[in-house]
């Protein structure tokens, strides 16, 4: 116990001395929250749209007027269908609307042709949805639960918190061990009578506390800037974050135990944790759409489960997550044992 405390104390002194940690822990997440918070949106607005009017009647002109006054389209008049194709290929417009000559003669079901740049399918579908809802008034009485005004940041910002904490937790823990290896002080530590378990725990604990503080800091910041609702209790957030940190920081320890230099550790954590946490956790792309084998892989990422917890807690006000909590605990035990075994070997 005593040796554990002295390792802990030594680590705290290290952290106090190193300014870079403060940058990683405080400045980086704030910049990333703003960047991702504003950048992620799949709702197209102000789409540059080429418009070709063969009808040229009062009715078609009224239609064009109402199209250009909506926030979804910026209308550019074009003179031929060829021009629409050419400008879509050049990327100047994303879609084209063609009003046929018989448009004003039809009372009902007057068809107009819509040509959409499909190279980005998500954007393309969004544009089509806007056009359809513009012309065909909704027939279905719909209510959206938990996010009535359909604000996209409400969905993505909780995910940003999860991804950032994953990245930061892994980077700072692996940094703390590999640095000692590079400077040669890790050998010194291993000659002291400190057991490898208390060495690892003493090294992890301060970073776990920093990561916990960071979660609340980013949450507060996100609330301030994006007015994210936090409907669940903060105590539950605290407890669940602790559950999440065990497997995450253990991965950091394992990476550092297996790599010789900080550069390798950084690259390994980028490939093993950063990229999968962004792509596979359900942060942006729904897990349900992935092929079965990939869905199994996602279950081994702590971020996948923590993401469900954070979203449920923020948006739906759920406080208890038995399934996700137990999975995190199980992953925690698994990864912590791997971490202890792999770093024990290194010390010998």
């Amino acid at each position: 116990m005593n040796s554990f405390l002295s390792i802990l104390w030594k680590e705290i002194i290290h952290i106090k001395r190193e300014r870079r940690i403060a940058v990683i822990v405080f400045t980086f997440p704030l910049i990333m929250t703003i960047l991702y918070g504003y950048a992620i949106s799949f709702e197209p607005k102000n789409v540059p749209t080429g418009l070709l009017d063969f009808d040229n009647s009062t009715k078609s002109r009224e239609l064009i007027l109402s199209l250009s006054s909506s926030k979804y389209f910026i209308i550019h008049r074009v003179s031929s269908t060829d021009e629409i194709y050419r400008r879509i290929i050049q990327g100047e417009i994303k879609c084209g609307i063609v009003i046929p000559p018989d448009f004003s003669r039809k009372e009902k079901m007057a068809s107009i042709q819509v040509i959409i740049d499909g190279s980005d399918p998500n954007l393309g579908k969004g544009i089509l949805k806007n056009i359809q809802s513009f012309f065909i008034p909704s027939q279905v009485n719909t209510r959206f639960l938990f996010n009535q005004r359909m604000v996209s940041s409400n969905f993505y910002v909780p995910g940003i918190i999860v991804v950032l904490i994953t990245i930061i937790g892994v980077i700072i823990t692996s940094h703390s061990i590999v640095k000692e290896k590079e400077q040669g002080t890790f050998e010194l530590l291993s000659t002291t009578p400190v057991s490898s378990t208390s060495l690892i725990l003493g090294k992890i604990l301060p970073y776990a506390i920093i990561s916990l503080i960071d979660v609340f800091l980013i949450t507060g910041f996100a609330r301030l800037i994006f007015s994210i609702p936090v409907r669940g209790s903060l105590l539950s957030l605290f407890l669940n974050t602790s559950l999440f940190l065990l497997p995450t920081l253990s991965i950091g320890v394992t990476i550092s135990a297996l790599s010789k230099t900080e550069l390798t550790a950084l690259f390994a954590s980028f490939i093993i944790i950063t990229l999968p946490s962004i792509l596979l956790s359900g942060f942006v792309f729904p897990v349900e759409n992935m092929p079965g084998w990939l869905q199994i892989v996602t279950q081994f990422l702590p971020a996948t489960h923590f993401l469900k917890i954070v979203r449920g807690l923020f948006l739906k006000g759920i406080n208890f997550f038995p399934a996700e909590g137990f999975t995190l605990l199980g992953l925690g035990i698994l990864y912590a044992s791997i971490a202890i075994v792999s770093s024990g070997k290194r010390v010998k």
Partner: protein
Amino acid sequence: MNRVRLKGMLRKEFIQLRRDKRLFPMLFFAPLFQLFLFGYAVSLDIKDVPMVVVDNRNDSFSREVILSLISSGYFRVVCSTHSIEVMDRKILMGEAKAGIIINEDGEIGVFIDGSDNNAAGIIQGYFEQVLSRFSNHIPEVYPIPRFLFNPEMKSVNYMVPGVAGMVILIIASVLAAGILVKEKEIGTMEHLLVTPISPAEMVLGKLIPFIFISYIEMGLVIPAGIIFFHIPFRGNILFLIVATFPFIITILSIGLLSSIISSTQQQAVMTAFLFMFPNIVLSGFMFPIENMPDWLQKITYLLPFRYYMTILRSVFLKGGGFPQLWREILILCIFALFFFTLSVRRFRKILT
């Protein structure tokens, strides 16, 4: 510029590259790993939406409504109930993403979990599509859509060309960031300085091997994307190779620059990461630039990756060539020239 000296420098660099054991797994494993991750993971399509049915009417009409929802292939029923509370709880716990209530008077109400607003919008569209049959309203105007370049609307077709660019972005900038500081760290920089090699020769000698490597990466990712994900390639490969050149030079020069201003490898890589991150998030690679707020859209014009992304996607999907893409190429050339001269000048300063 002396050809013999440059040749010698190049030989030294290639020998060093060959000896670096860490490099090769990184060069081959990393790009393919990214390709498969992006290829399989990124899809925003929604299928089989779990739905709760509250049928208070229970006659042929309501059964037909439910049947047509199921047979559309978009929905599956997880629970049939008469209680709205049950439906609410199922949606709250995430077991269902939507609920439909059919009242005795035939009125239909739809509830959708809005927490993922992108999915919610798509689910709403599915409901509209299926349920419009049951309303007697005929729309005045009826849009007939046609999607160009990617008629099956496959996300991979859009993402995989981008991965080719991302691989170059990550690997080239990390490699270039590491290389000069490495000589500083192990002390061989002084050795190089006493040789008669000029700064330009040295920078070129350092860059040329990485230009090769970047092209090899591209040669790895593009065929793999075409073979495994059946990505169309409609443009000219020769044009793409030429158009890639200013992008590679830009990225390598920026990597070199961060190498020059740092004293350890780690600092250099961190600096390169700082440059990479906004390039990945804001280039339109994952999130459409069109949907960002205006001030953020203006920032994206400063990112070289944005222009290269446009080139890649246009060449793959639209068959774009010089007439469509000369602007992007010109801008990349300006970036390349700017960062290359900047790094050579900074390098000269250090030497003197």
